[in-house]
Structures are given as structure tokens and as C-alpha cells.
């Protein structure tokens, strides 16, 4: 990937202005981790926008500062546990001994109810935490997988091939990371329409016009960078939309993107 071209393309500015597509955002965030010059360009853009706003502020109404702080404090107060105080009420007619027992048992019942309440709350919290923990472990594994793949694609022997949209699909885009030494191939779909069930995107490597199957992209896989088939030789890559499971040879009318090395 030509970093200078990427920076000059304006995609970073679009990202900071808030109009990059999801896949563009993912690509930029990935590239920022491996290319400090991109990260720097993003930061500079952010600083420009921030300075633009800081140099021309519009002061809001003077009472707002306190009003917002009040709101924040009230919010905090709501989330704290309420004060539990058993109110004492006079009960003139009854004998003092009986009152004392009555209040004690009322307090005991109350304490029991509160205790049960806290237990239910606590076990709900634990259950939530367990689910959250399991989700976290899943996410962690996903992240590790992506991290491993990232380590592969930043190798100097990896060629980045951007596949641009064909005339019928001008805005489509994908990127192939092909390790010329190890022959491994990784695919990112930067901008391709979601496939309907029963269809799949298939990557092809072309050698002197002859297509070789390079594997299928799994749209159910949460990882954006997917490892496909090893390819020993290629002068071009292309993606076609095929029936699920792929085809033996590409359906040329269903080509979406292509790119030369």
C-alpha cells in the first residue's frame, strides 16, 4: 500500500470530519496501528478541527454550567442506595412492651425482605458479570486472532493489492495482502455489498489471464481480515460473486473488483 497515496486521498480528513464508512474506519484504525505516519496525520487533522472550534467559541447561557452540574449530581444521587430508616410512629393506646416487640418483628421482616432483595440483585449482577466475562473472553480471542494476522501482513515480503470496483460496481473495493515469500493470502472487504444467503464472494488469483481459485470470504466471520488459500503466483486478483460454496471458474459477469500487482 502506498502510504503517501493513502494520506493524499483525503480518507483521513473524511474520517475526522465524521463521514467515513464503517469499513473505511476499520481500515484506517488498522493502518494507524502499523503506520505511525498515518496516526500522526489523523492527530493533526483532529487538532485542526479542535483549534477551529476553540478559536471561535460561542458561549452558552451563563446559567447552564451550574444547571448541568446539578443534573450530574442528581444523577449520581439516584444511583446510590436510598437511606433506609424505619420511622417511628406513636401508638398511644397499647402497652409499651407489646409495641417494642411489634416494632422489632416489623424491623426483622423488613430486614429479611431487604436481604432477599439484595441477594436477588447480587445474583443477577453475578449472572450479568458472567455473561459479560464470557463475551469478553470471546472478544479477546477474536482480537488475538486479528493481532496474529496483522503481524503477518506487516511483513516486508507482503504485497498490498488494492482491488478497485469494476464499471458496474464503481464504489466497490477490497484489499488483498499477499505474502510473496510464504505465499499466504489475506483478504479485506473494504466496500462490498452484503451478500444474500446462498451467495458468497470468491477471490481469484490470475496468472497471465488464467484464474486460480484463492478461496471464499466468510461473511459470518466477525474478523474483517481473513486468511484464504495460498497462492504461489499472481499478476492480478479479482473477486466475483458466486453461489455459496464457490465455483470452479469465475462468473465473469459477477466480477466486482479487480487489481493488478
Amino acid at each position, binding site marked *: 500500500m502506498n502510504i503517501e497515496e493513502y494520506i493524499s*486521498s*483525503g480518507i483521513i480528513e473524511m474520517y475526522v470530519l465524521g463521514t467515513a464508512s464503517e469499513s473505511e474506519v476499520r481500515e484506517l484504525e488498522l493502518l494507524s496501528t502499523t503506520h505511525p505516519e498515518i496516526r500522526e496525520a489523523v492527530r493533526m487533522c483532529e487538532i485542526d478541527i479542535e483549534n*477551529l*472550534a476553540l478559536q471561535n467559541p*460561542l*458561549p452558552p447561557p451563563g446559567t447552564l*454550567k451550574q444547571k448541568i452540574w446539578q443534573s*450530574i449530581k442528581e444523577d449520581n444521587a439516584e444511583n446510590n442506595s436510598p437511606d433506609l430508616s424505619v420511622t417511628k410512629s406513636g401508638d398511644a393506646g397499647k402497652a409499651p412492651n407489646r409495641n417494642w416487640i411489634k416494632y422489632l418483628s416489623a424491623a426483622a421482616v423488613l430486614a429479611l425482605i431487604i436481604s432477599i432483595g439484595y441477594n436477588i440483585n447480587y445474583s443477577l449482577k453475578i449472572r450479568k458479570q458472567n455473561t459479560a466475562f464470557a463475551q469478553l473472553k470471546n472478544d479477546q480471542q477474536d482480537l488475538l486472532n486479528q493481532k496474529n494476522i496483522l503481524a503477518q501482513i506487516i511483513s516486508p515480503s507482503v504485497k498490498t493489492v488494492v482491488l478497485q470496483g469494476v464499471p458496474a460496481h464503481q464504489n466497490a473495493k477490497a484489499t488483498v495482502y499477499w505474502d510473496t515469500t510464504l505465499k499466504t493470502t489475506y483478504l479485506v472487504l473494504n466496500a462490498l455489498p452484503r451478500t444474500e444467503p446462498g451467495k458468497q464472494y470468491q477471490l481469484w488469483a490470475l496468472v497471465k489471464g488464467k484464474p486460480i481459485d484463492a478461496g471464499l470470504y466468510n461473511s459470518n466471520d466477525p474478523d474483517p481480515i481473513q486468511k484464504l488459500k495460498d497462492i504461489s503466483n499472481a499478476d492480478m486478483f479479482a473477486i466475483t460473486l458466486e453461489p455459496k460454496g464457490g465455483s470452479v471458474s469465475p462468473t465473469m459477469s459477477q466480477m466486482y473488483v479487480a487489481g493488478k500487482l
Partner: protein
Amino acid sequence: MPDINYTETELISLLQSNEAAAYNYLYDKYSGALYSIIRKIIVQEDKAVDVLQEAFIKIWKNIHTYDPNKAKLFTWMINIAKNISIDILRSKDYKSEQNRTASGDVFIENENLSINVPVDHIGINKILEQLKDDYKKIIDLAYFKGYTQDEISKELNIPIGTVKTKARNAILELRKLLKV
């Protein structure tokens, strides 16, 4: 403006402590910047004030989810404010209200002609005014109106690639103007 100047990292730590001092600093430093952008999206003062309030509360409550590796603090804050603003702008209630009072989008386009533009709001226009028309338009559509690249390309009748390069040139031009 506050006398002390915190670095971004210091400010983030301070904010995570949930102290009033952090709120004060944040509000004093950024409320004007945030409000000027909100007012560009939501022109009515009372609604814009509501947005600013909602934004500050959301920022305060969610500071623990802010990731400094992803974006600067200001970018994160302004996105919160813009999302709230754009939600309101696109909500059915707001739209029908605008139709009834016959203002809204037309108002924003002809801001300079309208008598309702607050005098102190001319501030942000000063820098933006110096930009070429098409640069101004791109920043307005992308940043203030939340248009997607596709929508901008259709609106300005230029290919998406050009939208991106124009945006880049606009920011570069802005950078020059801000340095002066």
C-alpha cells in the same frame, strides 16, 4: 478560560476521578467550542442548549469508555454532541415543527441573510468564510450536517474520490488560516 493548562492526558485522568474541579475545567475550556458547533447544526437556541446539556452529561457519564488510542478527547466529545444533534434534526417531531414554522434547512443555507443569526455566532464564520465556496460546502455537509460521502457526491455532483481530495484540501487550507 482557566489559568492552569492541563495536557490531554492529565485532563483525562482528572475526569476519571469524577471531581467537580474536572467538570469546571472541561466546561470552561470546551463548552464554547462544543456549543458553536451544535448551533451550526441546531439553529434554535433553546434546543441547542438542551443538546449541549445532554452532551455534557453523556460525556461525564461515559468518560470511562473513552479510548485515547482511538481519537482525541475533543473528537470523542464532539461526536457525542453531533450524534445527539443529528438525531434531533432527523427526528419526526423536529421536522414537523420546522415545517410549521417555515424555517429549518432554508434558514441554515441563508444564515447570512437571516436576521436571527446571533451576532456572536459570526465568529466561526470568520475562518470558514475565508475558505473557497466548495471547501466550505464540503465541511458544512460532512461535519455539520452529517452527510455520507455518497450523499455529498450526489449533492455536489462530483465523484466520491473528488469529495475526499476536496475535503483534504479544505482541511489543509484551514490549517493555514488557523496559523495566521
